[in-house]
């Protein structure tokens, strides 16, 4: 099941990669968001944005199958992820790379073991090759020489980068990032953004990012969905730079301009 055809392939506007239809997210009887409809095109850097606690990370958890939708469906290409059987789901999962908020490196393993885990479980490579490839991935994220460190021995920013190296271990088709800049200083966060762009360009992957960092949103995003906590549904979707100028929804514009009156003045009421 390799995907040489799809990897390394660049933006082709029309082709949808992830399609979300009428998705409702709920915890028990508490509905967090309803009627989410959006499409992520192949090669997009897609931003999931919105205020704190509105369900951005929960949406991500739905996309990667950690939580089941209360209603609605998620498609990857032609495959209905929500209805897929365990085998098909596992095949899809192997084409994902996920970077979790805190890195979520396995603390009982060294960095090279963390990165090499997927390779040793899902490929027939011999240990020496696995180590070689894992070191290469670590080198991509600037962690050459840290192969045999344990996650607890390196800093938070380095853990995050190592998490990224793990996420790209199998050259995924889709990369998911949960708050990549949380807990990073502005410069590291900027470097991580550059890295995301770099990886997208070289792997040809689709990227989905949960963030509320405006700087990142405008630097890397070319498509987005805005979740509104008050109305419990999506308030807008599209290129964030366009939304900032042209969104009909004042909440979205206020968010994207940090609520600064100078830029907001053209908009509305208060």
């Amino acid at each position, binding site marked *: 099941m390799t995907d040489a055809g799809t990897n390394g392939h660049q933006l082709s506007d029309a082709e949808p990669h992830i399609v979300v239809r009428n998705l409702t997210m709920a915890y028990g009887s508490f509905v967090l968001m309803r009627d989410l409809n959006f499409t992520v095109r192949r090669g997009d850097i897609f931003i999931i944005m919105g205020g704190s606690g509105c369900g951005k990370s929960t949406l991500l958890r739905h996309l990667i*199958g950690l939580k089941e939708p209360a209603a609605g469906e998620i498609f990857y290409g032609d495959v209905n992820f929500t209805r897929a059987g365990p085998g098909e789901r596992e095949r899809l*999962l192997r084409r994902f790379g996920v970077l979790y908020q805190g890195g979520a490196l396995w603390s009982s393993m060294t960095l090279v073991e963390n990165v090499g885990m997927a390779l040793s479980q899902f490929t027939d490579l011999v240990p020496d090759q696995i180590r070689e490839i894992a070191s290469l991935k670590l080198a991509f994220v600037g962690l050459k020489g840290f192969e045999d460190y344990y996650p607890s021995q390196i800093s938070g920013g380095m853990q995050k980068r190592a998490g990224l190296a793990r996420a790209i271990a199998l050259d995924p088709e889709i990369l998911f990032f949960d708050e990549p800049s949380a807990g990073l200083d502005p410069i590291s966060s900027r470097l991580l953004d550059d890295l995301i762009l770099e990886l997208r360009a070289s792997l040809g992957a689709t990227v989905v990012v949960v963030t509320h960092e405006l700087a990142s949103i405008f630097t890397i995003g070319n498509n987005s969905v805005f979740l509104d906590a008050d109305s419990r549904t999506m308030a807008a979707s599209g290129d964030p730079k366009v939304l900032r100028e042209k969104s009909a929804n004042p909440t979205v514009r206020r968010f994207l301009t940090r609520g600064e009156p100078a830029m907001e003045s053209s908009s509305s009421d208060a």
Partner: protein
Amino acid sequence: MNPANPAVQTAARHGAFSMERAAEATLVIHLLGEWHLRRDLPSADEVAPELAGSPAIKRVIFETGELGGWDSGLVAFLVRVRELCHQRGIADDRSSLPHGVRRLLELAEAVPEKQGARGREERAGFFTRIGEAAIRHGENAAEGLGFVGDLTVATGGLLRGAARFRYVDLAQLIQDCGPSAVGIVTLISFLVGVILAFMGAVQLQQFGAAIYVADLVGIGMLREMGAMMTAIIMSGRTGAAFAAQIGTMKVTQEIDALTTMGISPFQFLVLPRMIALVLMMPLLCLYSDLMGIMGGAFVGVTMLDLSLTNYLRETIAAVTLTYLMIGVVKATVYGALIAIAGCMEGFRCGSSSSAVGDAATRAVVRSIVMVVVACGIFAFITNILNI
């Protein structure tokens, strides 16, 4: 006009207030002294009786001429006063308050209280709580069954050779569950042997039958105590550790990371723990049996004037292979129960650091309960089978 406000008299430097009725249904509250959180602050509830008094008050104003320093202690007081005023439809005039105080009051009241945000914690009635507890227990039982089901499937995968876990992890776990526990098992088992011997000796000596201490200790250790003591040690040592390890992995999203990589956390984490404990428990149990007999022999030789040879000969005559096997089978089952309890509580762990501690505690309690219940069932079965 309010003559006895004790706070005013006792310490003028502390935050205090006095109240005075001015004309036309107006209450003047004089704020005095230093209103700091770190000092004693008067309670706003003292204002309530005055507001309720007659003739009815329509307006409250503040007088701050003698107010010294202030911090959020004063703001909290004023917020409470306003609440009291609102309950009675009284206006409070804040224009005389310092600018900073007014700003903070506005900030505190800028966002109205969200309807329904409070009151979710309302205490339910007695029967509701009983019902909820019953439902929760039902769910727990269902979850337990689900866990055993998952385990069966994973074990099936293991037998087909399709299970994914790292043998390095298994080796490490075997080290943790086996050799590392030898020290504590030695100590506890030896002492249990000593205790059993003393207990028997007091009675048996009266009949001049001290030599039967060897039978008592030998049979007792092999059939029951060896497996039981090992199980209790391993619940506290290993069951809790399993719950804490898996719980922490859940908190740090390491389990999510496994899932989204397409690796079953169940196979990856539970199977090696289960295998390690099920392999090591019988060995530890055998070792514990031996240590218990040594403990008994120690008492026999030093206190009861028996010779070591006689003691051991008597022991060998008393115990049978069946007894030994009963103990070993029990230990294996206990091992499985401890692994299940530890791993299950780990997976059920919530997502905060205190939840990890709770999970470890619950794992120990649950595994000891399960071990003792299993012990009872074993006693019943062996009795029926006459062994």
